[in-house]
């Protein structure tokens, strides 16, 4: 309560002084994502996860486009699920899309010439209004980047 009041007071003062430069707005979403590897592929290695906006610069202008990376990370020790908070930058766009791929050969790269195909998958969070989401991604598309899978 005290922090909220202090923020309010500081915010009021700064607004009165006209000194807000950039104004950012973030949506905090508690996300749980489970990753299932298509049986057609070998199941081994770590899953690499990317979170994206569904649309960057929405509104249909010339700078509007699907996707827009928010964050990327790797699930260590062969974990097949992720639980954590994702901050969606609403000042950049809208929606939340999760993309993942399985790093079978451990080189940190999605596929490579002569290497075994690595499966990927993508899913969009349908409803962000409850600030929580649960997804199950099937990693079944060989060597496909997020742009190839969405929309």
């Amino acid at each position: 309560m005290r922090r909220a009041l202090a923020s309010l007071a500081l915010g009021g003062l700064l607004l009165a002084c006209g000194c807000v430069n950039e104004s950012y707005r973030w949506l905090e979403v508690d996300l749980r994502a489970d990753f299932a590897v298509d049986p057609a592929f070998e199941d081994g290695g770590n899953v690499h996860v990317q979170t994206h906006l569904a649309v960057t610069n929405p509104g249909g202008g010339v700078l509007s486009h699907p996707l827009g990376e928010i964050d990327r990370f790797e699930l260590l020790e062969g974990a097949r699920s992720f639980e954590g908070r994702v901050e969606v930058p609403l000042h950049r766009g809208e929606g939340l899309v999760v993309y993942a791929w399985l790093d079978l050969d451990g080189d940190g790269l999605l596929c490579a010439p002569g290497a075994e195909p690595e499966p990927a998958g993508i899913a969009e969070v349908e409803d962000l209004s409850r600030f929580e989401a649960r997804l199950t991604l099937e990693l079944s598309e060989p060597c496909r980047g997020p742009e190839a899978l969405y929309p």
Partner: protein
Amino acid sequence: MKALLVGAWALASLGPPAGAIEGPDLGESSTVQAAGGGAPRGDWALELSAGFPWQRLRGQVGVGRGFTVVGEFETALGRRFWPAAGVGYRMADHAHLRITGEAMLGWLVQTTPELRKRGFAPMLRVRVASPWGRRVNRWIPHLELGMRPAILMDRSVYVGARGERTQWTARSNLTLWGSLGLAVAINEHVGVDIGIDLPWVDVPAISIPGFHVGLYLGGWGR
């Protein structure tokens, strides 16, 4: 540049000669005072400067003991503004060398839509002038070196299951200023100035040099 700063610092450390700028008649024109900073108590000077891309209105009044009160309004093509007020102190006061340090408190407003900036922007500045000539120190080459950090506040609003919280973050940018000019005192009260401006705006972004012509007025009613 480094040697110049070291020299200025060495001279400044000598301090002003006792009573040197307190006397009622130093034979010092308002142009010398405006270009080099500093003024005897009650003396005032005004600088009107126009050029590309900088324009400036600056006034100062001597308040005694080597101090001046300074007010300034600077703009770059009507898109970047810097109103400021502060104090100056004449650190060296010799026949052919005046050095004044100035500390200013200002506010930066940049209105260019893509590069909007606004925030507290203090400035530290050294003015060096070397008056020459008989009568009213007619020729006054002068140098101005300054640094101006700006503190820019950004606001982030986080919306989540526990409500909304606001977080303020500060970033800063730095503007370095250099200006070299030649002022000419037409008489005790009026002078003109021409010079080049070498600002480094928002370091490390590249800035283009500029130029200015100025008019100095003051000293009436001493």
